């Protein structure tokens, strides 16, 4: 099976760019200019969204550029949808 990766978002200010890869477990890495202030909040948004969608098999790289949490949610949901479609092909 070919390894697939899925990306959503951009590197613009206020945005977040997320890379997803199918895996056998969940792992989340956050990269942020405001890591010390918001790292935990970002992680919580990501964890909550993954849990809500019962996702247990992705590695996630979140590159944050000061995004609000609804933006993080949107980008993550978009990436998960791309993965859902990519996997079913």
């Amino acid at each position: 099976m070919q390894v697939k990766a899925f990306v959503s978002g951009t590197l613009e200010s206020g945005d977040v760019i997320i890379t997803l890869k199918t895996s056998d477990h969940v792992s989340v890495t956050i990269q942020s200019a405001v890591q010390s202030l918001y790292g935990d909040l970002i992680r919580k948004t990501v964890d909550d969204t993954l849990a809500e969608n019962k996702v247990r098999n992705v590695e996630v790289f979140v590159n944050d550029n000061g995004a609000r949490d609804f933006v993080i949610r949107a980008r993550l949901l978009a990436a998960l949808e791309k993965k859902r479609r990519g996997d079913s092909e």
Partner: protein
Amino acid sequence: MSKIRRILMFIPGNSPAMINNAPIIDADTIVFDLEDSVALEDKADARFLVKETLLHFEVPGKDVAVRINGISTDFWMEDLRAIVPCRPAFIQLPKTERGEDLLKVIDLIEKIEKKEGIPVGTVQVCPIIETALGIENAFQIAMTKTERLAALALGAEDLIADISGIRSNESLEIMYARQRLVNAARAAGISPSDTAFINVDDDEWLVKDCKLSRSLGFDGRAIISPRQVKLARSMYLPSKKEIDYAKAVIDAIHDAKRRGRGAITLNGKMVDEPIVKRARAVLQSIEESERMVQDE
């Protein structure tokens, strides 16, 4: 009578930075765009972003609308499925050419409203006419499920290409289109909304064009740069004469009620339904403008 909307501020649906600015823009309506300001490869991302924005991002004191992709694209149905449940004030449908196109879209909106338990008719539609055929069909379009229509809008850029016209500041090339659209809208009882002025750095011509637009009968227009908002808004606000007249109409209504009379008269003339509606709309839009000014 549909609500009077003066400034429809367009915000690219895939740009969080611009979306963040929405609350501080002095528009009465924000339109999140999924169509021309979003590249093909970003359509899916934008759809999710606009959806989450509608659900979680507060834009107080303004109506929020979404311009979806046109029915000739692969995107419009998914756009509606994602956006309608979030209850935007209205959906803008670009490149509307026929009443049938509009009907297709309204049908799907209605299906989704029913499925989501939303009162049918909650999400209105504003067709954007951008082609020669659309202009010819303007009245037919405006009469399609009129009660669902938030406004009738003009999109000049594509129209000029469609008629092989040449863009100019004076805008003579779209004079017919503007007039026909205003006429069709008013005849159907809905608000006409003018095209954006794309020379974002030319204040002098912006003012001239807004003045022309207002005098032709448009209630407001699309705006694509926050820079344009203040100037444009002042051009579409009603004049003192209009406001006084509207107040007089309302007084006449109260007067008639008090006297137990069915017919409403003002200065010896009968005042009929469309004029009453218009008067109410004008006063309501003033109230909202004042509220926004206070909030500044």
